[in-house]
């Protein structure tokens, strides 16, 4: 156990995780038709490498990443590809590969465990890339890409994020309680892949069982490179930059990534997925998802195949109960609200929250800002939300940039404390989109102007060259010789 350096601001929230942690981890039934979004949430596409009619087993690759920001995709079930079509997913509307389950649950015979200790770091990274391991903390960014960046920056410190600060989400807690050894092994593999020399597993202090399990797992491994750090249960201490500040005491510069200060951060779920891959050869095809809320009969944590419709998961937890008012993917503070439960899960879905009105806060009508400053006290990015709000209402782009709108992590802390019930997070999100559009427009216009100026210069030079040539020819025609 290490001591804790200075902490950023945060809120103590009601965790609401007990109900979902009462039962041990269950496995959700495999879906009848798995719907795999080709864009798993990172915004970058992959290319399908199967066609309609291809037979696949669990773990068969079905799409290759087209850029460094996308991950390879693998089939979570055994069956036949029935369709490649546009469908609605959690990540939006996009192209999906639909696979029909043939109930054999057969694994792809090509899968084999990886002797990771025998591989060098770069080869290990390549294996992880091909295994489609994505950040399971929600962003679904390729883990191999992050670790490669860490290697390129000679990062020494790997942080495994087990903080899980957001209310209602407890999939990482369940994972750490029951598969602590996997988390530690995954950490060791990531150390080898990234070249880091120190691994810190960060857990909030409201998870004593998880802390005990991880401590035991670290002791069993007898690897003194791996340590556990307890953090206070503050939201949003699990946000990457805030977590790094809490553990190392250093802030990641706003215009750079964590590897530039020698730290790389991964979710504990990602580490467990890495461990499963090296142990069995199985790429990322399933993950733990919390299904919770007062609108679910038996909330709990499930091992879920990627691409399972959310309705199936709720049914696996006893179905709906009461009158669920909102279906949220994610937690209470940053979760996205869905219209329908037929949407399939992606690699980044960590929690399905079927909320009744009792779980939610009904807001009063919005009042004007009374400048109380509670939002600034709560902001983990040390912004001034009330000033940002004024600037957002006035659409004053200069002020928004100066006040740091780009640094807002949209955690919802300011909304939470505002006595005037102003929907600050939504306003800032809209303002950021407007600013991004405007910035893109201005960039285009500036490039067009530069090209135009080059065009004019070229024409002027051509005209000057022609004039010189003409005078030269005239001189020679008069027999005067060069000047």
């Amino acid at each position, binding site marked *: 156990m290490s001591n804790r350096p200075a902490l950023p601001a945060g809120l103590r929230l009601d965790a609401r995780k007990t109900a979902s942690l009462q039962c041990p981890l269950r496995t959700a039934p495999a879906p009848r038709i798995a719907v795999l979004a080709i864009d798993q949430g990172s915004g970058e596409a992959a290319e399908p490498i199967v066609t309609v009619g291809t037979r696949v087993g669990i773990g068969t690759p079905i799409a290759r990443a087209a850029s460094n920001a996308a991950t390879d995709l693998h089939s979570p079930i055994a069956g036949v590809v029935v369709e490649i079509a546009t469908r609605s997913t959690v990540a939006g509307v996009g192209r999906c590969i639909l696979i029909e389950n043939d109930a054999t649950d057969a694994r792809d015979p090509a899968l084999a465990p990886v002797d990771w200790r025998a591989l060098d770091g770069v080869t290990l990274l390549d294996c992880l890339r091909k295994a489609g391991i994505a950040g399971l903390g929600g962003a679904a960014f390729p883990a191999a890409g992050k670790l490669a960046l860490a290697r390129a920056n000679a990062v020494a410190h790997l942080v495994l994020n087990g903080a899980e600060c957001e209310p209602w989400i407890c999939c990482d807690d369940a994972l750490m309680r029951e598969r602590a050894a996997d988390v530690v092994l995954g950490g060791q593999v990531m150390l080898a892949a990234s070249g880091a020399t120190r691994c810190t597993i960060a857990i909030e202090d409201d998870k004593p069982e998880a802390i005990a399990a991880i401590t035991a797992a670290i002791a069993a491994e007898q690897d003194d490179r791996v340590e556990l750090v307890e953090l206070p249960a503050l939201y949003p201490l699990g946000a990457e930059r805030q977590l790094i500040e809490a553990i190392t005491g250093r802030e990641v510069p706003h215009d750079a990534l964590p590897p530039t200060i020698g730290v790389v951060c991964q979710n504990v779920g990602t580490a467990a997925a890495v461990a499963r891959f090296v142990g069995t050869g199985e790429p990322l095809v399933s993950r733990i998802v919390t299904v919770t809320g007062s609108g679910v009969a038996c909330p709990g944590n499930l091992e879920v195949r990627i691409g399972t419709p959310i309705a199936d998961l709720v049914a696996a937890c006893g179905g709906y109960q009461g009158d669920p008012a909102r279906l949220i993917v994610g937690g209470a503070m940053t*979760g996205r609200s869905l219209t329908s439960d037929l949407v399939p899960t992606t690699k980044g879905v960590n929690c399905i929250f079927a909320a009744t009105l009792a779980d939610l806060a009904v807001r009063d009508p919005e009042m004007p800002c009374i400048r109380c400053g509670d939002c600034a006290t709560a902001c983990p990015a040390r912004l001034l939300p009330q000033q940002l709000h004024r600037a957002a209402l006035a659409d004053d782009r200069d002020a928004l940039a100066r006040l740091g709108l780009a640094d807002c992590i949209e955690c919802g802390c300011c909304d*939470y404390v505002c*006595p005037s019930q102003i929907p600050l997070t939504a306003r800032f999100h809209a303002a950021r989109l407007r600013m991004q559009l405007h910035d893109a427009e201005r960039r285009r216009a500036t490039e067009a102007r530069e090209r135009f100026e080059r065009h004019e210069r070229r024409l002027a030079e051509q005209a000057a060259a022609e004039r010189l040539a003409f005078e030269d020819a005239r001189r020679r025609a008069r027999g005067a010789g060069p000047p």
Partner: protein
Amino acid sequence: MPAMKFRVAAPPHVIAGFTVPRVMFQVLLALVPFAVVHVWLFGPALLLQLGVAAVTALGCEALALRLRGRPMPQFLRDGSVLVTAALLAVSVPPLLPWWLTAFGTAVAVLLGKHAYGGLGQNPFNPAMVGYAVLLVSFPVEMTRWPVPGPEWDAVSGATALDALRTGLAQSYTMQEILADPAFGRVGAAGGEWLNLAALLGGTYLLLRRVIRWQIPLAMLAGLALPAALMHAIDPGAYAGALFHLASGATMLGAFFIATDPVSAATSDRGRLYFGAGIGVLTWIIRSWGGYPDGVAFAVLLMNLAVPLLDRYTVPRIHGHRGR
């Protein structure tokens, strides 16, 4: 099974549930000790003042909301105008003619708040706007305080700060001035109890996190430090720090008036400067100015400086190097 349909909403999906009426109610609650001591010292006239001010304030607010076309029930219930009325009522002399209190409240609500756009938009503290207008327009009535004490007979007497100012102007030394019955052990005769009650209420607000510590602490420091310094240099001509802290509207100003969030600075550092400025200006006006108590004008002057303070005290954002 038919598909479930859900309504959508933007995150966050939970909030703390703090509301403006709750904040305002806490402030009113914290004023109760002050009001009780006030009534004990000066008689029940305060209750009449509070009543007049509250009724006028609600009436003016309703009128202004109707004229501006804003939703009346929501804004009338938010309690902010009651806080303005209460602060004004406890600041004016208890025997002020009721129509002057009503006039001052009307000025505070209509001119000090709604002329600028209503809740959250006023650059000046509305109660102090009303008080300042009354003080400047009706100086005699506004400085006629009864003698504090359990016998509510004597109508006219100088307040301690008043006695201090006139005494110094007449070149009496501090020791001679302090012998005047207007003074108690520490500060003004009744005033020290009033300040203690306000301190009590203020501490309650601090503990309940309704106000933050920057403004009160800075104001009290800004008042006490120059006072202590000048008192050390020339004890005969300047009152000491404890006297200033225990006299006049010091504690009321520090915890209730200067902390009005709408007209105060935004950032923590800005609030420190804001509070310190109020404290120093109060001391200057008390020691060298033309009015016995300077809190109202000090607050209004620092309200003027708030946009500047906000502009130049933006805190360093996480991940940015120095601003």
